[in-house]
């Protein structure tokens, strides 16, 4: 059984973009012919892909490149406030892709962060693609680390590498991938650069039976670290199959109302089941 993504407390964008056909102008490499853009109609899909990222990192451009949709892309933060959905087929397998609002964190300070966090935590996508801006990595990594604390099913799209190159910035992709424990793909989505690699990485993470465990960040503050460890043990005892106990423990220490509610009504326990994986579901 596939778990449908929950609908958070906001609606869709008032005007859904017109469904477009294949994008003729995108310069995709030949191997990407395995890609079929399904626009707004994902049809039957096997995997759910969530697209997260800071505002203005080219998230919507990646979304458009994958789905063939032409959502308006703006060069400013906060363009996409609601989530948009679309679909594509890669290697004959259907993917549904959810474009989350751009956020700097998942700490649930505003409605858009709530949407992003709820989809990642409760929607349990098969793959979360975090789009980051290669020219300002230090400002993008906090979100990547937070997503990695929740799940190991992550692909990092190091976007805007063309701009980084122009500015003389080089990012060590292999080092980053090693540190994060997940695939990191350099892309320039505006030109279609790196999209074949990104698709391959998405496929690999979506189909693996053995994703890396959620990232464990050790806090230098011994007091805090002790509290987190204690509480994480208790969370693990209460929800034995929950993978991201430390992240949940952190949120509970902060008094995050959304997570507290999920503990109270037991819905956090539902997250313990293995993710939907490769089960076929109707769109």
């Amino acid at each position, binding site marked *: 059984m596939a778990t449908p993504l929950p609908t958070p407390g906001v609606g869709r964008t008032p005007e859904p973009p017109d469904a477009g056909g294949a994008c003729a102008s995108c310069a995709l490499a030949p191997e990407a012919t395995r890609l079929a853009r399904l626009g707004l109609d994902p049809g039957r899909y096997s995997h759910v892909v969530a697209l997260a990222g800071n505002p203005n990192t080219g998230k919507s451009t990646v979304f458009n490149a994958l789905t063939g949709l032409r959502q308006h892309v703006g060069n400013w933060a906060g363009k996409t406030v609601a989530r948009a959905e679309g679909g594509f087929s890669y290697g004959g397998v259907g993917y549904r892709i959810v474009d989350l609002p751009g956020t700097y964190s998942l700490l649930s300070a505003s409605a858009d962060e709530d949407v992003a966090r709820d989809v990642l935590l409760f929607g349990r996508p098969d793959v979360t693609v975090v789009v980051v801006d290669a020219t300002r990595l230090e400002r993008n990594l906090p979100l990547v680390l937070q997503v990695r604390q929740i799940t190991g099913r992550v692909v990092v799209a190091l976007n805007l590498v063309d701009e980084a190159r122009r500015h003389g910035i080089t990012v060590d992709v292999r080092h980053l991938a090693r540190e994060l424990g997940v695939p990191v793909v350099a892309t320039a989505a505006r030109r279609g650069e790196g999209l074949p690699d990104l698709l391959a990485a998405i496929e690999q993470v979506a189909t693996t039976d053995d994703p890396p465990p959620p990232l464990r960040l050790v806090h230098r503050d011994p007091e805090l670290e002790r509290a987190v460890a*204690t509480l994480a043990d208790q969370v693990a005892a209460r929800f034995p199959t929950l993978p991201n106990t430390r992240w949940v423990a952190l949120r509970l220490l902060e008094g995050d109302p959304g997570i507290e509610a999920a503990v109270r009504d037991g819905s956090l326990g539902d997250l313990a089941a293995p993710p939907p994986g490769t089960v076929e579901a109707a769109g």
Partner: protein
Amino acid sequence: MSTDLLEEAARLRRGLPDDVGDRIVESLYTDATRLAETSVDRDGAASRLTVDRALDRVLTHRVWGFLAMGVLFFGVFWFTIAGAAVPSDLLYVLLVENGHAWLRDGFAAVGAPWWVTGLLVDGVYLATAWVIAVMLPPMAIFFPLFTLLEDFGYLPRVAFNLDRLFARAGAHGKQSLTMMMGYGCNAAGVTATRIIDSRRERLIAIITNNFSICNGRWPTLILMGTIFVGAVVPPALAGLVAAGAVIAVVILGIGVTLAVSWALSRTVLRGESSVYSLELPPYRPPRVLRTLWTSIIDRTFKVLRRAVVMAAPAGAVIWLVGNVHLGDASVAGHLVTALGPLGWVMGLNGVILLAYLVAVPANEIIIPTIVMLTLTLGAPVAGAAPGVMLDLGDDAQIGTVLVTTGGWTLLTAVNLMIFTLLHHPCSTTVLTIWHETRSVRWTTVATLLPLGLGFVVCASVAGVVRLLGA
């Protein structure tokens, strides 16, 4: 059992310092910084980034920033006004003059009853043709230009410049971003206020979004500016003065936004101002062809389609109220007479107010509605059959008709420009406001507050002008 976990969390939290949330975030950012430092090699980065910095030094400067903002927007409007004249004339000749005549002839040839011809050709077709001729050329120029500025990365700089002003008005700095959205479409602007986390500041942003002139209202302003304000100066300066008049209304809108935000945050929506960080994106060379394509498809045609969909039934309504007679006058005649005194007080007239009633669903059709009502009701003009709209060649003729038949003055045009800024949001926006706030009270406030302001400002302007003129 699950509550045990919460109690344990609460117990542990009590053992920790109060700023545990901050410490967690701090620890996260420390890790992020370390990871970024070991992964990024910024060879030569400093030298290349200075272009961005130099641009920002000017465009976000306390003085030069505002000056650059004025010059850029002025340029956009001037280009729109100057560039739209010729294609607008062509569309008039094609759709309104010839198209209308051909259709009338065609209907006459097949022997259609007079009222069918009236309703469909003089009502539905003419209103639709009008909307296209009035709106398409300026939109096809304005939207791509605006989108190019947006893609270049300029809009966040505008937000940055205005941020200080918003902070002083007790509003959230991100309101400047939602305001920018509102310049496209107020419904979209209201939805965009979701990026504001505090409910208080979000309500302020929602209520004031209507003071950003939306797609539907730009054509009215541009047309009024062109045919009335621009006409009082020598032709060589007309374009510049017309653009200046439009800019003046935009600035008035920003002023009203700040004033209303200030008033709300000191009365019914009191509270702390939130702190936030506004990221200035790098300047990116806009991809011109793609921008032209998306702005014409996404914006121009979408807005035009909406206008046409609204104009067709409105055309039928206009024809009906103009031709269905109750007693000695048409329905429109009665309504205009009834609204006349109120219109006079506001320096407008009954026709304009009736047009705003007909055009509640969409601001786009205000000007065509006004002109059609004026012609339907006005004293017979040579060449016009009763109840049939005169075919007008160009913008100047619209002006002539409004002046001679409608009795318009410069005051009417200026007050219409003010009322275009200050009136109730369109029905789509009102629905969106209700959807976002789920509050009948705030939706009502957001709807009636601008209308009330519009009445007060228009009546004041009319009063002052009449006092000085008398």
